[in-house]
């Protein structure tokens, strides 16, 4: 379908711009940025947003609770036209508008400041309940990491969302199976996240987090009363083979060899 081809192209551009940005900076949270690229491509194709008016009242909202994936969101916003692509090269510069973790007061298109893990879902459900009480039809999305779900506050917010029938709220869990110190299996097993969310009262499905079509179909589901959850089966470093295989790929300081690999990966994305 043409729609999916467009989203596919968009995701490649997001991946390319994010890799370029990180290469330019020389270090960064590559792993967790890569694993949500396809999801961001789908979201920012579907969401009602206005790059010329980032604070548009009548918009859909995204809270990137896993704030360290900020660079992927910055690329997405730049490609949507919220700001110049050039700005991406200022990632983490002194005085930049693009800090490692999203800041709603600095960057056009960022809906909520995040980075202290575990707080994003609460803010997102706050937005959702505010919109619900106003009778608004706007949608609220929140991307959370599977490692981030270690934080107890996430489960408070999840229970709260289901209790309040927030059918305008969709939680996207980036299940890339790794956190900073190792695999989630080693650090603190998550067990079956889809089952967990379902038992909390969410309308839940598990999809291949690299499949534009599966993500899009899951997002398009409408529910009457319950909030939705999409568990994204992803790989940390997704779409960049070398970094997918690299064990410690949460935050990477690139060696000369890695820089060469990044350059060729970026070129590949150009050709495609």
């Amino acid at each position, binding site marked *: 379908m043409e729609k999916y081809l467009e989203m596919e192209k968009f995701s490649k551009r997001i991946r390319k711009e994010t890799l370029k940005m990180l290469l330019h900076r020389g270090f960064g949270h590559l792993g967790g940025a890569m694993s949500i690229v396809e999801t961001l491509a789908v979201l920012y194709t579907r969401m009602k947003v206005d790059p010329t008016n980032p604070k548009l009242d009548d918009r859909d909202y995204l809270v990137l609770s896993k704030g360290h994936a900020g660079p992927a969101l910055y690329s997405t916003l730049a490609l949507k036209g919220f700001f110049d692509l050039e700005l991406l090269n200022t990632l983490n510069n002194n005085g930049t508008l693009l800090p490692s973790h999203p800041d709603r*007061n600095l960057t056009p298109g960022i809906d909520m400041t995040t980075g*202290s893990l575990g707080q994003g879902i609460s*803010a997102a*459900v*706050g*937005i959702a309940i*505010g919109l619900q009480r*106003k009778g608004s039809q706007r949608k609220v999305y929140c991307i959370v990491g599977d490692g981030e779900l270690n934080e107890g*506050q996430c489960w408070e917010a999840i229970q709260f969302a289901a209790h309040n029938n927030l059918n305008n709220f969709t939680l996207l869990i980036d299940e890339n199976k790794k956190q900073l110190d190792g695999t989630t299996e080693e650090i603190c097993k998550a067990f079956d996240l889809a089952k967990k969310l379902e038992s909390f009262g969410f309308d839940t499905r598990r999809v291949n987090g690299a499949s534009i079509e599966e993500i899009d179909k899951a997002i398009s589901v409408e529910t009457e009363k319950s909030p939705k959850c999409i568990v994204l089966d992803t790989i940390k470093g997704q779409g960049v083979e070398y970094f997918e295989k690299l064990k410690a790929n949460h935050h990477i300081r690139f060696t000369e060899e890695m820089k060469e690999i990044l350059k060729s990966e970026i070129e590949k994305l150009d050709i495609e």
Partner: protein
Amino acid sequence: MAKYELENQEMRKAYSSTLDEMINEDKRVFVLEADLSEAISTNSIAKTNKKNYINCGIMEANMIGVASGLSLVGDIPFVHTFSPFATRRDFDQIFLSGAYAKTNIKILGSDPGIYTQHNGGTHTSFEDIALMRTIPTATVLSISDTTMMKNILRQIKDIYGIHYLSAIRKGSYKVYNEDEKFEIGKGKVLREGKDITIIACGIMVVEALKAADILEKEGIDVTVIDMFTIKPIDKELVKKYSKLTKGIVTAENHNIIGGLGSAVAEVIVENTLVPMRRVGVEDRFGQVGTLDYLQKEYKLTAEEIVNKVKELL
């Protein structure tokens, strides 16, 4: 000369009835609770203004996040829980989803310090003011009576940002007439005397007035200031009275570390360098007890203020 009398209306009724009125006038006002509606009397709002009432359950961290989200869509959330849970429990949430993210949240921490009474040490906060004072841009207020509560609630509705109010739940004394005006950031001079200045907040304002009466009988004239805004502290007033009188005594229902006494000391050290004493909790934890027992145990009494005043003369 300022007087104080027993108050009929409880502080919690002043809080809940004012919020109810405010919602009737402005639908952006939201009331958030963490399963303490009954304790603070906002349970009536769940009936009168159901749409603007959210009980978050026992989830203080989530409640602050939800409040930040509400503020992002233009609402004005007033959240309440007991003071330790309103500050210690969710400090990072208030710091980040609140102040750092520049959202608009009004927080009431109720039953601070010895007012916990039979809930004891686990529920006692002698550090709520200290914690909130370190959050950049946050305004920190200690409410001394119901008139002030009603007035301040209406004011902070219209001032964007993080406001923390520390207040008891059940009324004790009345210090102000119903038509009294308050300016956030300006202390209230309740009584003027040439010898020493007592700067108090919250429940200690009445103890300061009692101390002034005791001292007057002994021929000592003190100034009494209700410093209800602890941050930003009224520097000019502190400087003025530290020059007009021979010394400063602060009095607070809080640890002497980090609260009103510290805030006043910071002004004095950088400016007038007059002698100073602090009445407050001397770096201890809370415990169960009746109010009069705890008041004596932690030396939060008019007599202790009198002692400290005399030390400076």
